[in-house]
């Protein structure tokens, strides 16, 4: 499970046409692979990462030196079994770990894009992933799997390239961003943009970094990723390294310390402008609006086998949104399984070691693999 810096140069023959109308040429997409592609090239799984994720899904992340964000699920004899499957995970378009994004150089101006990077969408990200998969000479993916914004990409894959995937596992996700989702993102973006060190997005040239803004954005977002129960269970009203209240505004409570740590750790590994661009892409996501007639029209006659998974305590993308997807798929007679996992761990539950969740993913993949004959 070694990570090496892999990337593909894409868009040299044909540019990537963005939803905004702009074109991207000669751009890099960084990716990692785990396991081996079989002879028939029919065992490839694409993992789509979420807002703050990266291509280092398993093994050790060379930047943070921590284990990959989904190392509990991807590996030998794990639910996404690398003895059986060839797993690909790419850094999304607009990301900041090697794929083209605002902190990369514009090949024409030879300067960082910063805020001149074109606004991107989830569909643009998926189109870039498709170019990568073509580059790897894989005609059909066995599965596309992802949680949260990764789930948006999964749903978009099934909508845009139904003939290029056998199955799809959208997890803890929705088919569109709600007003509340957009509202939380906007507060995060405002925190970044009102940090004087943001410098209108040109902080790299000015040798600065909007650390305060980005960490506040992360702290806020992190609250939404857990549940009220999880916070209470983890921290309660416990005090941080003290026995009584300090009657001041420094860190009194453990939960404050935890959030500050989350914020600071994030600043070290994430680019603020990437955060703006990716949250924007998520806000723009409304799959149902891509076709008149909505999801039912989009998935009519789909050959894709779906396994939709939600978590009871997820209040970012609650079960009702997964249910709406499932209902639409049922209406068009699609092959769909749906599981709601009981947990108090909130939206982030898909990143944690949830037994029922693991068993569902593992069972679905194995059963379909044997149908495909491997």
């Amino acid at each position, binding site marked *: 499970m070694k990570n090496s810096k892999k990337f593909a140069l894409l868009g040299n023959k044909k540019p990537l046409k963005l939803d905004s109308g702009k074109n991207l040429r000669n751009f890099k997409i960084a990716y990692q692979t785990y396991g081996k592609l079989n002879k028939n090239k029919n065992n490839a799984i694409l993992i789509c990462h979420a807002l703050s994720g990266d291509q280092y899904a398993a093994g050790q992340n060379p930047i943070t030196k921590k284990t990959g964000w989904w190392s509990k699920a991807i590996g030998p004899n794990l639910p996404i079994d690398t003895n059986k499957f060839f797993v690909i995970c790419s850094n999304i378009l607009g990301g900041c770990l090697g794929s083209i994004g605002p902190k990369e150089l514009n090949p024409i101006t030879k300067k960082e894009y910063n805020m001149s990077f074109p606004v991107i969408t989830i569909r643009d990200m998926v189109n870039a992933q498709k170019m990568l998969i073509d580059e790897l000479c894989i005609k059909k993916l066995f599965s596309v799997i992802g949680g949260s914004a990764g789930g948006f990409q999964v749903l978009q894959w099934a909508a845009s390239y139904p003939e290029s995937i056998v199955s799809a596992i959208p997890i803890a996700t929705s088919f569109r961003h709600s007003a509340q989702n957009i509202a939380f993102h906007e507060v995060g973006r405002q925190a970044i943009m009102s940090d004087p060190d943001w410098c209108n997005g040109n902080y790299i040239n000015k040798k600065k970094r909007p650390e305060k803004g980005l960490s506040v954005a992360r702290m806020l977002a992190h609250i939404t990723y857990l549940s009220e129960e999880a916070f209470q269970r983890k921290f309660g009203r416990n005090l941080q390294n003290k026995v009584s209240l300090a009657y001041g505004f420094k860190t009194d409570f453990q939960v404050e310390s935890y959030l500050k740590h989350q914020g600071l750790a994030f600043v070290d590994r994430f680019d603020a402008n990437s955060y703006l661009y990716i949250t924007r892409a998520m806000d723009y996501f409304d799959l149902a609006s891509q076709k008149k007639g909505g999801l039912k029209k989009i998935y009519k006659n789909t050959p894709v086998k779906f396994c939709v998974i939600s978590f009871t305590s997820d209040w970012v993308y609650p079960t009702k949104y997964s249910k709406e997807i499932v209902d639409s798929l*049922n209406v068009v007679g699609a092959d*769909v*399984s749906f599981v709601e996992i009981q947990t108090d761990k909130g939206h982030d539950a898909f990143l944690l070691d949830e037994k029922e969740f693991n068993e569902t993913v593992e069972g679905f993949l194995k*059963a379909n693999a044997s*149908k495909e004959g491997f």
Partner: protein
Amino acid sequence: MNRLDFEIIKNVIKNNSRVLDVGCETGELLKFLNKEKKIDGRGLEISQKNVNICVKHGLSVVQGDADKDLVSYPPKSFDFVILSQTLQATHSPENVLNELVRISKHAIVSFPNFGSWLVRLKLLIKGVMPKSDSLPHTWYTTPNIHLCTIKDFKKLCNKNSINIKESFYLNKNGKKINNPLKKKFNNFFSTSGLFVLKK
């Protein structure tokens, strides 16, 4: 559900038909029908544990509730919908029945007959809520909140203009009753009934 129930259902269902099993539990019937009739099968099951087992076996099963979730299926989206030994545990059997015949060309419904002589006898002689193989629970643990007799069931179908296309009366071993006298007095002699409905 027992194997004999499976056989009757198998004989009713045509090859390659689209089938929804409502309350499919761990998917035994779906697997059986996949093998025997090459159906395009779907399941609806309330227990997450059971759904997981089904998904693991490669069945397409959605977690949901017969009382609430049948509404999302469009009219006649299946050739057969099966509700086996579950009607009596639903909150609104009348709504559920109407939904079944709405979403499918045929509905196969089976349930324990509370009018069976065994039940009647136990209540008459012992004066307590009857327990049997098909009604194994105590009155305070039973999920069966809307028990009925075969006569009651037929009345409800009639009230809702639901046609009974085929009727099977089963004895306590789950075998079809063929004796014409017992068939005539089916509400007295059968332990459970299985009906093919259409609207």
